[in-house]
């Protein structure tokens, strides 16, 4: 692993998994709980190498269900705790994510998507988009950042801890196998040196330092329908309020665009290159990318597509992003042209080819 530190700004060249481990250190995470699954293994590997140097902890559990719930335990006791997983492991962790939604626990998950369903491939996909945004038995009261570059993996992992501990919703960094395994340059830094405030964790239960504390009663079980309704509706209101504050997106050239390419995550790199090349040829093309896929920048997308005739939606899944887009722009008559490649990467050349068919 690269011999670097978080003193000052450092340009480094490393894999995405290593980036995640460094970002967790930079965010002052206290402990990782985990269970190995490719392609996220090295987040654990690097974390276990970094942990002793920075006074951090690690616990390997017997499976992902346990990893999810032990992480919740860490969070409840006031530790910045996180876990990382992929594919079928992400499925198993949804139960803990649901509990976090119900009990408002600030857990951070790093997801490196692999092919699905089931074991499928250990390589790459965007097939965990629906699962990660709406995987619980509830309303999807969570935050999901979909990253595209190593710099973003670093920045948004730090941001994920802050968002989780500010709003008390489970927060996901949604990466993928390509991001996990590839190497590219980025700048790592100590966020506090840059004036980024790190939200301090605090015990949600059992704060022994404050014996006169208010009694806390965190519940995930309710006896009556009305009781549950009140709680879920309050969470919904909190989530709606938060959504406006944290929603993030990127848009280019949509003002005069006839066709807009919509992508998220690593596919937006191919889309951005295609956009640049098409614009250089004088084509009226636009680029739109949700960075938070939950909450989704629906208003912003609606504004962006006002003058356009077609949306080219490209994803490494069969219609998971399309479904989010359709829901958000309901009522619009714009034509959606899907480019659906479940479990395989999408290159710039392929997007250009599809664009030229429009």
């Amino acid at each position, binding site marked *: 692993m690269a011999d670097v530190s978080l003193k000052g700004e450092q340009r480094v*060249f490393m*894999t995405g998994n290593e980036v995640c481990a460094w970002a967790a250190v930079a965010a002052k995470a206290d402990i990782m709980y985990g269970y190995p699954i*490719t*392609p996220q293994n*090295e987040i654990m590997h690097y974390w276990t190498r970094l942990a002793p140097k920075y006074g951090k902890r690690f616990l390997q559990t017997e499976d992902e269900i346990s990893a999810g719930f032990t992480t919740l335990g860490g969070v409840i006791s006031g530790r910045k705790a996180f876990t990382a997983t992929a594919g079928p492991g992400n499925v198993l962790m949804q139960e803990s994510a649901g509990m976090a939604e119900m009990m408002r626990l600030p857990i951070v998950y790093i997801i490196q998507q692999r092919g699905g369903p089931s*074991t499928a*491939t*250990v*390589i790459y996909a965007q097939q965990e988009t629906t699962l990660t945004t709406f995987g619980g038995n509830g309303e999807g009261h969570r935050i999901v950042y979909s990253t595209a570059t190593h710099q973003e993996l670093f920045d948004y992992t730090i941001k994920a801890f802050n968002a989780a501990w500010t709003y008390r919703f489970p927060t996901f960094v949604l990466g993928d196998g*390509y991001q996990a*395994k*590839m*190497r*590219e*340059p980025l700048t790592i830094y100590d966020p506090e040196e840059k004036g980024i405030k790190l939200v301090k964790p605090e015990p949600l239960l059992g704060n022994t330092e404050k014996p006169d504390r208010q009694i806390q009663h965190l519940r995930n079980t309710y006896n009556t329908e009305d009781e549950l309704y009140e709680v879920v509706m309050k969470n919904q209101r909190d989530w709606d309020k938060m959504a406006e504050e944290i929603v993030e997106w990127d848009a280019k050239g949509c003002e005069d665009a006839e066709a807009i390419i919509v992508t998220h995550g*690593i*596919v937006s*790199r*191919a889309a*951005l*290159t*295609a956009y*640049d*090349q098409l614009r*250089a040829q004088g084509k009226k093309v636009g680029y739109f990318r949700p960075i938070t896929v939950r909450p989704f920048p629906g208003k912003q997308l609606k504004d962006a597509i006002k003058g356009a005739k077609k949306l080219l939606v490209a994803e490494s899944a069969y219609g998971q992003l399309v479904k989010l887009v359709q829901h958000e722009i309901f009522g619009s008559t714009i034509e959606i042209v899907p480019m659906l490649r479940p479990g395989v*990467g*999408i*290159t*710039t*050349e*392929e997007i250009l080819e599809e664009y030229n068919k429009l």
Partner: protein
Amino acid sequence: MAKVFKVAIAGEGGQGVQSIAEILAEAANEEGKNALYIPNFGVEQRGGVSIAFVQVSDGDIGAPKFQKADILIPVSPRAVSRTKMYAGKDTVYIYDNSLIQEGEVKDNIVGLQYFDVTPPCPTAEHPNADLPQDLIAGEPKTCSFTKPGPGIDSAEIPEVKKIVAIPANDIAKNELHPRVFNIIILGAVIAATEVLPMDSIKKALETKLGDKFKKNPELRDMNFKALERGYQLIKNAM
């Protein structure tokens, strides 16, 4: 927009193609360029063709993989057939036409998905007793290529802009050392891309192997010689 150089290198697990790619990408990064390196990896625990994708540019780099390589380098017969799809009309195609076969991949090879972990030398029956055992501790090792084989079927070579055949395996075995096979290929990549000065690669090798070089200066000579040899092979052929 700045040009993006797209390089794909493919070989058997243990031939060291991922190391070549990594050194190339790291050297480009050190030169202040943008570089992106991604290995292909799968669920297989042993054997198989391993492909490394590297892109180097002065500008931004888009998707991690690409359709057609500017420079495509298959270094084993199986890699030739496995990488046909990455060859296009603008591709410079460099392949190894040695008659000495790549090492056999035995059961104890570590899975490609663990490319960060040192695989044991694939020729398990002959564990390279004659070689420095820990050439690079913690880094993938190349194996000893000893068996004569049929080489590459020329009918398998795709139509491209330019084809260059280099007997890197034979040269490594006969003139230098089997272990520096991948460094010859690295020299060839530098000559073919012309995006990085030779010195930057030497610096990257020095960073990576500096401790070993200090202990055994001969290693440095051998690696640099292999690098130059690969470089000249391409320069003479282009």
